[in-house]
């Protein structure tokens, strides 16, 4: 299972089926959800504080983290995924990891974000990710690495994402199990 942003779904689907993986597609509205369902992909709504949550009951929800507010919002609504929980400044701590573990929220490192940075920022991001993984391991919060891209050629095979998670500090079994549980 891999997580990507929507569009162009056709090419994304072609490459992911070559890798023998299913995609979770992040959509903003119901129109996006329809397109994803048509292509037999799993839709997941990106929500923020302005979104009407009453409409999205019993649907997968993901929150774009990176700020204190967004991270807290994810714990408040018990989101399924917390994407990119940090940016150049670290906003992730043990308390948040514990809350996420209790809610069953999966922390997602969107790899595309990391690739887009220059080497200096990449170093900061990587350092933050190492800390996040350490917190997640302590509190047993689920953690995965996803491609997180719109460009189909930037899709990363499962083996590569698993290896990145291992390089970040997860064991082989933990990294594999997290990818399998991502449904």
């Amino acid at each position, binding site marked *: 299972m891999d997580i990507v942003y929507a569009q162009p779904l056709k090419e994304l689907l072609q490459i992911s089926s070559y890798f023998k993986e299913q995609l979770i597609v992040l959509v903003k509205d119901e129109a996006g959800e329809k397109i994803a369902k048509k292509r037999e992909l799993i839709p997941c709504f990106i929500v923020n504080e302005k979104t009407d949550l009453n409409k999205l009951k019993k649907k997968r929800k993901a929150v774009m983290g990176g700020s204190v507010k967004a991270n807290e919002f994810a714990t408040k609504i018990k989101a399924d995924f917390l994407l990119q929980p940090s940016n150049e400044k670290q906003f992730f701590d043990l308390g948040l990891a514990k809350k996420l573990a209790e809610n069953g929220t999966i922390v997602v490192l969107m790899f595309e974000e990391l690739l887009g940075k220059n080497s200096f920022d990449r170093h900061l991001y990587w350092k933050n990710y190492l800390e996040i993984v350490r917190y997640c391991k302590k509190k047993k919060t689920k953690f995965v690495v996803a491609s997180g891209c719109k460009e189909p050629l*930037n899709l990363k*095979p499962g083996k590569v994402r698993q290896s990145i998670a291992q390089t970040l500090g997860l064991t082989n079994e933990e990294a594999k199990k997290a990818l399998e549980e991502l449904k």
Partner: protein
Amino acid sequence: MKIEKKKKKTIPLSQRERKRYVLIEILNATIPEKDFYFGFWIELLGFFGSKGLAEINPRLVLYKDNKAIVKCARGRETELIAGLAFIKKIRNKKIILNPVVTSGTIKTVKEKAGFK
């Protein structure tokens, strides 16, 4: 004083450092061997640094039909595969590197790759 020339001893096979072979498939573009090796090396060096790369010790063993067999130190294959994620382009050609199989012998990898 007479200096005797000693014959260099070869390390017995059982005492040599173990290695792993990774079969990498290059998708989306055809790339010559030299370009692949250079692009591959630069990206890994950028991410792991000189020390990290020396520990991984990657070597291109065979390159044929857009498939490459890369040798590395045993226990470092996960780092090698993780490093592949950072390679987006080689010579301005967008590519995807797909690690197909990892093995301890080149024979198995060659069989999987379909090389004779």
